């Protein structure tokens, strides 16, 4: 890391994660996708896996590379994505934001989340921790990886992750 490089503060990471959550809550998914680098990944492991599980060796709920993340966004913006038509209402509470490490242009951060999804008279809750690898770019922070680790024993009773966590 060059000596002149300014370090990213926790407040900056918080602002970034709050605005990410807001884009998702507003279903502005194409804009949200713009927050990711070209080599980005987005993962949700199964809840019976160890913390260091890898998606090329173990079965996850979601393990998107940047291509499939783009396809996920395209899908969710269609009315034929039946599970999310009409779009559910979501509310993401992000907290306990911490910067874990910084090296070169990369910032590792952790936050906890509680995401509510409401559709057809039912509200489901997703609780867990999100691990980010963020990159400092000329346009601000960007996401190189996002991994959402759920605290629940299983995906019950929500039954699905049809939204982005």
């Amino acid at each position, binding site marked *: 890391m060059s000596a002149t490089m300014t370090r990213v503060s926790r407040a900056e990471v918080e602002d970034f994660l709050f605005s990410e959550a807001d884009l998702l809550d507003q279903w502005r998914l194409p804009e949200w996708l713009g927050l990711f680098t070209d080599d980005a990944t987005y993962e949700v492991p199964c809840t019976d896996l160890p913390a260091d599980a890898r998606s090329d060796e173990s079965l996850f*709920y979601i393990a998107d590379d940047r291509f499939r993340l783009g396809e996920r966004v395209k899908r969710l913006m269609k009315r*034929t994505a*039946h599970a999310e038509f009409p779009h559910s209402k979501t509310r993401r509470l992000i907290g306990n934001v911490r910067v874990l490490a910084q090296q070169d242009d990369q910032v590792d951060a952790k936050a906890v989340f509680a995401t509510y999804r409401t559709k057809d008279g039912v509200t489901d809750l997703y609780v867990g921790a999100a691990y980010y690898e963020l990159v400092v770019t000329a346009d601000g922070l960007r996401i190189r990886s996002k991994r959402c680790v759920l605290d629940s*024993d299983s*995906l*019950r009773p929500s039954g699905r992750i*049809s939204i982005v966590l």
Partner: protein
Amino acid sequence: MERSEQPAIWVDEGQKFFKVARRNFVDPEIWQAEKERIFEHCWLYLGHESEVAKPGDFITRTVAGRGILFTRDSKGELRALLNTCPHRGAQVCRERKGSAKSFQCFYHGWVFGADGRLRSQPGEASYAEGFKARESSNMTPVPRFESYRGFNFVCFDRDVVPLDEYLAGAKEYLDIVCDQSASGMSIVAGTQEYSIRANWKLLTENSIDGYHATTTHATYFDYLMNTTDGLTGGRMGGFGIDLGNGHAVLEYGAPWGRPVAQWIPAWGEDGRREIDRLYARLVADYGEARADRIAKMNRNLFIFPNLVINDIMATTVRTYYPVAPDYMTINAWAVAPNEETAWARKFRLYNFLEFLGPGGFATPDDAEALEHCQRGFANNKEAQWNDISKGMGKARPSYDDELQMRAFWTQWNNRMFPPPTVNKAQAAA
């Protein structure tokens, strides 16, 4: 419960109709009767031998409401024990999985081997001589426990027919799935544990429904267009087959890539070499016709009452249970050849997640469809019947006809409402 005025299914072969009462999906009495007449008497999937690969390995699992401890004992033998202490009932093992030499019930400290036999208990001197040798001092095994090609089943009815006989025509398809591998199949780490707010039989129907794909999964086929070079691979087409005893299968060609072994452009030249190698192995071992069937055809296999093995863009094992008439829990795993290369494993899992499971591009839409059927059934007093007559009377119903559902419902009806047995003396008179 007795057969009510209105039948549960209504079939007329002549007029080619097959109707299912929507009451079957909502009525709590039906659900109670299913527990007794179906889940107490059918072979039910417990787990795969690879999940307890080494002596001492164990998993705990719930099957038909029972807590089961599935172990491999020190001699390497598989055991299915009821996870309850012979002393005063506490759950003996409270972990999901692991490896252990013995299991200690923490309440009063009785210790059992992985074979369920009592090894020691605190205060042994206060018990009768020979207490430990009594069968009643050991953990109770499930009444019946048998396996077929690594898939282990239990049954709570001591008098059930052997698993081999029960599986009937499904064995041929289990063989095809297992023959993908020269060295055996294993469950991949990671369990998808989810739920759907709908009756469990809706998932049976959905798992073997070739009719809904183009509409329910429109976005998945859009996605495939972008990964397969415009769907140039296998064409959709094939048949639905009744396998006896309520089991059924769809076997069909499809455009997606199969890790064993149908290549798609998204896998590149390295992928093509790997797929060619896998295919050549199949031809060498089984000849071209069977190799083609294993590699290029897809199978949605249903084993009555609640096991699905889908051998499609990846291979999944899925089982599910009703918790209430309108709520089910589902467990699903990926199963793969032991000898699979890291490359192929990676693409298998990538493939799995694009379609399958609660975060995939397809399963959430299935769940949505099932939940909206369940909501629709609120009208079942006035709008009483489902229709599953598609393809009736055809010599060979297509994979997108509804023969498979008819096979399931016919068996379901026979078990729920067996025809009254005629007394031999009366019949002779």
